[in-house]
Every structure is written in structure tokens, then in C-alpha cells.
């Protein structure tokens, strides 16, 4: 009897590739939301930023977030949730400040990177617990 082999899926459907795409889309969504919010700023801290909905950037950000959610649903069926959660949360913590620096021209001070590294370490410690909790709650 010859063993049957499953046809391998193309590289771009690899769950880690989709997970990476999800993290990039999360960063893109945040940058677009920030652009939308910045164009509608009122000059003082508002509790709700409803005015940002008048900017096209905000709606593009919402579309990117929906695509990010679709990636997350795809990955959840194929990877352990603890690993997926740690990778996507950690990657977004690095990609969002990078995106803000490149696309928005924000200056990311060294102390911010120190804080981000501390948060990444915290996520690495807590990801398994958080994923298990999300499953059981």
C-alpha cells in the first residue's frame, strides 16, 4: 500500500505567513487610524473621537482591521492559540512604533523602545496564561 500524501498548500497560505500578514495589517490599521484622528483633531483631549469618522483614513483603518481579524480567524484554526497570540501581540508592539516612525514621522525616543522591550518580555511571560484564559472564559 502506498502512503497517501496531502497536497501541500502554497507558501502564502502558510499559517505563519498569514500571522505575519495579520501583524502587518494591525500596524497599518493603527497608522491609518492615527492619520484619520490627526486630521480631525480638536486641539484638546476629547473623550470620544467620533469626529475622526469624517476622515477617509479612518475608514481605511477599519478595513485593515477587518482584514487583520480575518487573518486571525484563519490562523486560530491552524496554530496553537498561545503561540499565535504571543507572536501577533509581540510583533504589533514592534511594527506599530516602526510604522509611526516611517509613515507619520513620529520620533520614537530610546526610552520608548526600552518600555516596548519590557512590555514584550511581559507578553512572552504571560501569553500562555492569557491564551488559556481566553479559551476557558
Amino acid at each position, binding site marked *: 500500500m502506498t502512503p497517501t500524501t496531502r497536497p501541500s498548500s502554497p507558501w502564502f497560505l502558510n499559517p505563519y505567513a498569514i500571522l505575519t500578514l495579520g501583524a502587518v495589517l494591525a500596524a497599518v490599521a*493603527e*497608522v491609518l*487610524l*492615527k492619520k*484619520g*484622528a*490627526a486630521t*480631525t*483633531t*480638536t486641539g*484638546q*483631549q*476629547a*473623550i*470620544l*473621537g*467620533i*469626529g*475622526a*469618522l469624517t476622515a477617509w483614513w*479612518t475608514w481605511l483603518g477599519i478595513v485593515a482591521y477587518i482584514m487583520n481579524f480575518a487573518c486571525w480567524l484563519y490562523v486560530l484554526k491552524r496554530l496553537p492559540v498561545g503561540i499565535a*497570540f504571543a507572536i501577533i*501581540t509581540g510583533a*504589533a*508592539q514592534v511594527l*506599530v*512604533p516602526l*510604522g*509611526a*516612525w516611517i509613515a*507619520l514621522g*513620529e520620533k*520614537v*525616543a530610546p*526610552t*520608548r523602545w*526600552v*518600555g*516596548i*522591550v*519590557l*512590555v*514584550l*518580555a*511581559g*507578553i*512572552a*511571560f*504571560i*501569553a500562555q*496564561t*492569557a491564551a488559556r*484564559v*481566553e479559551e*476557558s*472564559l
Partner: protein
Amino acid sequence: MNTLAISLCIICQLFQVTGQLFLKKAMAPPGTGPGSGRVFAIRFVPGIVCLSLWFFIWLGVLQQQDLSHVYVFEGLNPALLAIAAWFLLAEHMNAKTWIGIAFICAGIAVVSAGQ
């Protein structure tokens, strides 16, 4: 960052985690009893309300603050989930979880205090 912005970032994360948990409960396999639709609505509607509040408060924060400054607060999400399990499920918090929460809080404190 001023106190109002820090408070809004934390409230934002509380709404996000609460909304996620409500929606997760709403999406659980439905019962077949006569009240199953009502149970779904009781979980789904607060979930959507919480996530809407998260979104609009977040937009309000982004109107005033640098994205790279406030995004670090997203790190609170897993910490709040673990704390929710401690309260709601009386789940044991091991040393690793406490260390993780301490690191996340320290990171947020460093970013909040800096320019």
C-alpha cells in the same frame, strides 16, 4: 502624558477586554431552549457596546497623542485577561504570570513617563 490621557488608555483597554469576553461568550455554541436567543442578545449587545466605546475612546486618544506613545498600552490586554480569570474563575496566578504583569506595567510606566 497627562493623567487624563493615561486614564483613557487604561479605560480603553478595560472596554476592549470586556467586549472581547462578552463576544466570546455570545459566540459559544447556542443552546436549544426557548431563551437561547435572549441569552445570545444579553452577551452580544454589551460586547458590541464595549468594543464601540473602546474604538471611539481610542480615536479620541489618537487625536492628541503620538501613536508610538500610546500603543504600548495594548500590552495591558493579556495582563487584564489573566486578572479577569483570577477574579472570575478563581484561577491560580503562578509566578510567571505575576512577573509578566510586572514587566508590562514597568514598560508602560517607562513609556508614559518619557517624552
